[in-house]
Every structure is written in C-alpha cells, then in structure tokens.
C-alpha cells in the first residue's frame, strides 16, 4: 500500500449540492493526512457541514470523489460505502447519543454489532473509552442526565469505540463554556498525539482552531469553494483575500458582493 492509498481522507474535485439546486461549493480538493487535526472552516451557511455530510457518505457528491484510506467511497454503486464508514468515527454536533441507552451501552453498541469480542472485553473496552474522555463513573447515566459538554465527550467515546484511525467532529466546541471547550480541545489533541488518530473538524470557533488544528481549509459561499488553505497561524497572517482577513480577525464584511467578485477575479 503506497503512501497515497494510506491517506485517511482525499477529496478530488468535490462538488457539493442539494437535489437539483445549483452547487453551493465546486471543485474542492484537499486531503487529511495521518495523525493531523484538519479543520474545515467557514462562516455560517458556507457549506462546511454539507462538505462533512459528503465526507461521511450521508450525501452523494454531485461530482468528484471522496477517498477514505484510499478507497473511493461511492465506487461500484456504493458497494464500498459501509466498508468506508466503518473505518471512521463521527461525533455529531449535538452528540446524537441514543437517548434510551446509558453511556456504557452507547459506547458498547458498535463493539457488540461489529466485533467478535467477548461481553467482558466489550464492557472493559467501553469503560476504557469513557474513562479516556473523562467520563469514568458516569457509565450508567442516560444522556439526558448529563451536560452538553459531557454528551460531546461521550459522543467522542462512541466514535472511538471501534478504534478508528480517523474521526470527524462537527462543531465540537459549539455551545460549550470556555473551560469545557478547552478541555475538549485538549482531549482531541491528546487522542491525536497518543493514538495517532486523524481528525476532520468542522468548526468556526477561532479559539479551538488555533488550539488544535494543524492545517485547515476556509470555505466561502460567495467564492463557492476554498479561499485559503494552510496552518491556522499562517492563515491568520494573510492580508488577502478580504474574507480570510475578516474571518480570522473577527471583522464584519463591508461589501460581500465586491469581495466575492474580487475573490472570483483572483481565482
């Protein structure tokens, strides 16, 4: 297996669209490398969550390809879709924990469904994953009984259940207080460093971006694509295009129409 095949995520010419509507993003090209925390950034409505839905196989791309560990997700009429899906974990914005199951059962479920591990080993693994995210002692709590930050941690534990080498996170810091958010950032960095997991993080929280993201792309709905790519510290130093400057310096855009024209002209 060559290096290209081992790349956790490779996106080539991805066009994101809903139904028969005009595309919201066109010709996206990027890759998430082994062990890095990769940010998919953009303002509200820029299409970053839509890109994520394409990456995790919930929506078929209008055009282009998504490779998960070298396998084209939609090749051979979706035959590889579930194979690819089993190779990554996913944390949804609100956690998406199963409300009728306690945390231990939430984390155990993928192990029971997809592995041949003994019940004792499944329980040990689930307790371990919960402990790794700082939820030891909460194994028998229902999701509704814990805070939003704890729900997100539990969702990461569930995403870790099958020991994937790739995890996608949708707005991990959204709605969390700074301390909880910093704790979650630290957890993501720890998991990436200690377990060599690659993360694809969709976010617009600049604090988290600067703390945890190794490399990022910035999406702009006006430009219908990626307007900047690189290390967050480098992106924050950019003086052009205006959208990148406005995003990283938390400034309002004075004239979105002119800026999008300028962006298009430069492309």
């Amino acid at each position: 297996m060559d290096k290209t095949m081992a790349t956790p995520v490779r996106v080539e010419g991805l066009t994101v669209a809903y139904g028969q509507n005009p595309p919201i993003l066109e010709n996206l090209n990027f890759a998430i490398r082994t062990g890095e925390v990769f940010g998919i950034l953009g303002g509200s409505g820029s299409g970053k969550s839509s890109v994520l839905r394409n990456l995790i196989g919930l929506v078929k791309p209008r055009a282009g390809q998504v490779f998960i560990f070298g396998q084209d997700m939609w090749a051979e009429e979706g035959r590889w879709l579930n194979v690819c899906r089993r190779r990554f974990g996913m944390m949804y914005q609100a956690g998406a924990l199963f409300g009728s199951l306690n945390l231990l059962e939430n984390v155990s479920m993928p192990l029971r469904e997809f592995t041949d591990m003994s019940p004792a080993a499944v329980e040990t693994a689930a307790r371990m994953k919960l402990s790794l995210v700082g939820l030891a002692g909460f194994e028998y709590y229902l999701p509704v009984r814990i805070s939003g930050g704890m729900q997100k941690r539990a969702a990461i534990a569930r995403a870790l259940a099958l020991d994937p080498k790739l995890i996608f996170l949708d707005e991990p810091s959204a709605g969390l207080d700074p301390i909880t958010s910093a704790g979650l950032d630290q957890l993501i960095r720890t998991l990436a460093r200690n377990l060599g997991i690659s993360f694809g993080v969709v976010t617009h929280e600049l604090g988290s971006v600067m703390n945890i993201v190794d490399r990022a792309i910035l999406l702009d709905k006006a430009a219908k694509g990626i307007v900047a790519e690189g290390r967050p510290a480098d992106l924050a130093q950019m003086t052009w295009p205006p959208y990148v400057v406005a995003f990283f310096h938390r400034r309002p855009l004075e004239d979105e129409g002119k800026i999008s024209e300028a962006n298009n002209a430069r492309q």
Partner: protein
Amino acid sequence: MNNAIPAGPGPEPPLSLIFDPQKRLARLAGALTVDAPRSIWRPLEPDKASASVAGINGELTLDLAGLTALDLNGSAQVLSVINQLDRSGVQVSVRGLPDDLAVILELAREALKAPTASPPPRIGLIEETGRKLVAIKNDAATLVTFTGKLVIDFLSSLRHPSSVRWATVEHVAEVSGVNAVPIVALVSLLVGLIIAFQSAMVLKFVGLEIFVADMVGVAIVRELGPLITAIVLAGRSGSAFSAELGAMKAAEEVDAITTMGLSPVRELALPRVLASLLTTPVVTLFACFAGIWGGCLVLTAMGYSLLTYWQEAISMVTGTTFNICIFKSIIFGFVVAAIGCQRGLAAGDGPGAVGEATTSGVVTNIVVVAVIDSLLAVLFYVWDI
C-alpha cells in the same frame, strides 16, 4: 500441550495464542486489534468445573513479544482476560511487549484505573409497586391541579372573552374538530351497521325487525355516538395536543411563555379546550347521524322503507336522550382536550418524552372517558332519566 488457534487470513501475520501449561507460558503473536476473534482466548478460559485454567493455579506468564499491532480494543481483551484469570486465582505477568505497543497497553491500563460506577441495583417488586402507587398519586394530584387552573382560566375567559386567543381556537377547531368529522362519521356508520345486523339476527325470529331502528336510535344517540366520538378524538386530537405541547416543552417554548409572565395553561391549553368544547358536540351529532344511517342500510336491505326506518329511529330519540347526548359530548370534549394538553405540558426531557406523553395522553383519555361514561350510565339509571 500446545493449543494454537489461528485467527484467519489477512495482510498481517495471523493472530495466534500458543499455551504451554507445563511452562505456565502463553505466547500471543500477530495483530491483536478490534477484529480479533474471541476464540483466540479459548485456551485461557477457566475450567468451570475446577475453576482453574488448564489445571494450573498460581502464576502464568503472558508473552506478547510476537505482537505486531495492538489497539485499545486489543488491550481491552488482554486486560479483560487478565482480570478473569485473576478472579480464578491465576496471577498473570505480562512480558515482551514492544515499546511502541506497550504505550497503548499502558494507556488502556491507566484509563481503567479511574473509579468506575457499578450497575444500579435492581428494584424489588415491593419497591417498584410502591413507586408506581406514589407516581399514580402524584399524577392524579397534578391532573386535579391542572384541571383547577383550567377551570379558573375558563371562567375568566367567560368574563373577558377578548383575552382568549380566538385565532388559535379557530385553527384548532378546524384541525382537531372539523377535520375529524369524516373518520368519526365512518366509524359511527359502521358501528350502527353492526348493531343493526346483530339485533336483526335475533329480532327476525319474532318478526320484530323494525325495532332494530328503535334500538339503533337509542344506542347511538344516548350512548355510542358520544363514546365513539370521544375515543376517536382521544386518539386523533388528544394525542396531537400531547405531542404538540410535549414538543413545545422540549423546545423550551413553554419555559419562554412562563418567563414572559404568562400562563402556559391559559396560552396553550385553554384555546385547545375551548375549541374542543365547541366542536365535540357538533362532531358527535354527525356521529349520531351517521350511526343511524348505518342501521338504515341494514333495514332498507331487509325491505323496510327509508321513511319507516327513520320515523321509528327518531321516535325513540326524545328531548332527554338528545340532551344526554349533548351533555356527554361536552364532558368528553373537555376531558379529551384537557388530558391531552396536561400530558403534553407534563412531558419530561429526552427524545422519548414526547412519545411517552402522547401514549400516556391517549391511554389516560380512553380510561377516563370509559369511567365517566360508566358513572353517567349509573347516575342516569338511578335518577331514572
């Protein structure tokens, strides 16, 4: 004795466990990951009869030098087996794990050192029964409190009609009342038809089939029309109230109303109850009409004229019978809407709360409607009405 079980083909060397009881040594080789089969550990499973592992007690060495890959789930398997052996009196010492994999095992071991919770104790039958009884008592108290608030708001709305949200009343009346007429009429028509059939089968032996019309008229108007309407509305409109208000509670809309200084009962429940009070008697009349027509279909098929049937059926529907019908429909209209709203406003948190509130609303409604109907039947009998 050597027990070697290969784990199957793969790009990595096959996973195998070689156990030598004489040397008290188990060698694990290959990739121990999430895909490892549980059968690999079979040689180390304690013997149920002797509670020992392959006849050995004391110490066992687990040599992991041959491992080529290890993840957290593989570590969980190792630690789970070590724990299991420990409970069987076998002390396991691990050796030979390559440094890069030892980090993973150590991470897993450290994670499991954190204090974990035990499963909550099972609740005994007596305690469970006690809890259920307390819950029923609290539920009844809540329902009475809610009814009290509703009655106060209702009386207040009579004094100040302009304070009622009539636009909501009109909308709810259309959705939960007018739109329910077809289904209520259909069910009632079929019930009238069934009663007529069953009665005719008996009465034809004595040549009194015409009295089927009297029976259908009385049964439908006095009893079944209001009852069918109430049960259908409980399933259709009462459940909708529970679900709608339960969803509003989950979305914190009810809290928003409360923090504005408004009463959720007055803002949300009262318009629905008023709409139900206004529409249920009308829907019940449609139900009675349809039920009587159901009987008519049978009798006309047996050769009686439409006019004869109609005159006979209507002759039994006195003013008192009609008043009882309307009285019951008002009571049922109030009960169905009130219980539906109360269950919605009392919905808990979590994804299943709306479903639970809806189920509870329908069940409570049907039970309460049946109980009230029975009580009224007894009272009317005692009072000779």
